[in-house]
Structures are given as C-alpha cells and as structure tokens.
C-alpha cells in the first residue's frame, strides 16, 4: 500500500477504477474519483465523489452491482456503447452515490440483477 495518509494521497484526488471484459468483446470500465472526507483512515479512505464514469464499449448491457449503495437499487445499468460521466454532486446524490464507500465493492455483471 502506498506511503501516506488518505489526506496526502488525495492529490489531485483519490480514485477507484475497475474494468472487466464483456462477453463477445469490449469491456466495462468504472472510474470513481473522490476527495478525502477528513475523517476516514486507510485502507478505507472515504469522501465525496467528484467524478463517476461508466464506460461500456461492448455490445451487451452491463450492470454495476453496488453492495454498499445506501438508497435505491443496488445496481446501475450500463447500456451498450455508452460512456457516461457524472460530476454533478446533486445527480450523484440522487443516484445514492454521494460517497466513495457507496461505490466501493463494485462488481460488474452481464446478467440483470433481480
């Protein structure tokens, strides 16, 4: 694990990135940038999400499973051929993704969650 604290590693931001291949070619990428909340400590740095990108360059629908999401469905749908970036804090809050901990533990599936 890198040397430093959540605060010192927040330069220019903290990030969680996850990429998985899709059936039939292409991949799904989830990239979350966030700032330290001033309270959390490593290895569980947490804080407000400032950037969330979901890129699905495959031909199939993907779902991001978010086990720690605190409101609404525990998943987000990524349609084929889409590349969506959200930086609006209000929009992220409406999605239930205000904090990095809401995104942590994300998994990608190509079968619609029930």
């Amino acid at each position, binding site marked *: *694990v*890198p040397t430093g604290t959540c605060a010192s590693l927040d*330069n220019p931001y*903290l990030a*969680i990135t996850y990429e998985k291949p899709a059936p039939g070619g292409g991949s799904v990428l989830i990239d979350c940038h966030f700032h330290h909340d001033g309270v959390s400590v*490593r290895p569980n740095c947490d804080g407000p999400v400032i950037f969330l990108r979901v890129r699905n360059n495959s031909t199939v629908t993907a779902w991001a499973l978010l*086990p720690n999401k605190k409101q609404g469905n525990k998943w987000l749908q990524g349609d084929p051929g889409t590349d969506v970036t959200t930086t609006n804090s209000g929009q992220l809050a409406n999605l239930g993704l205000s904090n990095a901990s809401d995104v942590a533990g994300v*998994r990608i599936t190509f079968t619609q969650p029930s």
Partner: protein
Amino acid sequence: MATPPTFVADYEPTASWSDQAAASHVTAAFNGSLGDVLVGLTGFADSATSPSAPNLTTTSTPAETWTEHTATTSTASDTWLQSVTAILSAARTGMTVTNTKTGGAVVPYAHDIAQFSGSDGFGAFAASTGNGVAAPSLSITTQFDNSAIVYMVADWAATDASTRTHRTVNGFTPTSGNGQEFTYFRDTANWMVCCAYIADAGAAGAKSVGISLPPPATARSSPSRSEARHSLFP
C-alpha cells in the same frame, strides 16, 4: 500441434478488492466439469510481515485438492502474490472458492479464480518481486507446447495503469477488450492489480509476460515495486 486449453471464466470474491476486514473472501458460485483446471491468483496489497508473515489459504466447496505454489518474497514496499491450483475431480454445480487470511498485515487481500477446460494439467510456475513500475515482467520457461499462461501483476504503490500494454506472447496480447485480461483494479490508497492469460504460448520455451506503461507512467506516490506471478499448464 496440441490444442491449447480453453478459458471458461474467472470468479472473484464478492468482497471488494480493497477489503481487509473480513477473515475470508468467497467467490460467487460457479459450475465446472470433471477435469477443468482452476488457477487461483491471490495476493496481499503489502508484504509486511507484522504481525505475521503473509499467508493465504484456499479451500473450496465442494472440496478439491488445492496446491499452493512458490509465493513472491516478502519484501518491504511490495505486494505479496501467490498462485494456487486445483483440478476438478468431478462435475461441480454451485462451487465456491474461499480465500482465508492466515497471516500477514492488516491490508487488503483478494483472489481471482480462472477456470479452463481442455487442459492436461499444469506445467511450470514462477514468481518475481520488485520489477519496477514501468515494465513489470516475469520470465517463465514453459514445459509443454501450446500451453496457456495465467498471471497476475500487482503494484504496491497503486500506480495508474490505465495506459498499460501487456507483453505479447506468440501473437497474443491480453487486453480487457479481447477478454484475455480478465480483471483490472486500482485503488489509489491501496494497490493496483491486473489478471490476465496468454491463450496459447506456442512452442515450449522461455516466455516473458507482464505489462508496460508508456512514459510518463503516472505514479501518484513513492517509487513503486511490482510483482508478477503466473502459472502455466498445457
């Protein structure tokens, strides 16, 4: 020419790659056929030996015989990686694989299980530590023609590898897009990991697998080390 094994799928634990709190991590359930081979890529985000040396134990339900292979050395400021293997002794439905932390520091740990069919078993294994961030590589001498090579690259410094390029072996260059890289994960506060396979390494002999990052590599923290770990089977 021998027929190379066929990659079926990979199975990750349901826990985050950043999780360090749980005593064990369990994969989602999967199915397999008699003779399928499983290659588990396991690792710690840090090889620190306090309070104890890194150690992970792999088991499965139903039980199979899991063999641990030589791990990377426990070097300061490096990750710790190890491969484990099993061959399904019967057709399995709803199988899960558990990775239990039996030693090591309080840092994230994880595993990823790659399943292959059409394999005759395993060949060589190798591990390497401290290869540098720009181009971590691992040399291995395959023992059989037309083997697949499975490997994991991890970086203690959580270097940004979004521009990574896997080394080409026998014309195969893993990417996430072609499915031969089956996991890429980076948590800037903890570690970077990617798992991939070479579908057909060609004639038996010396091979080099790993990744390279075009300059400038975007290191976000102190100078880093990387380890690669892979296993081979015909």
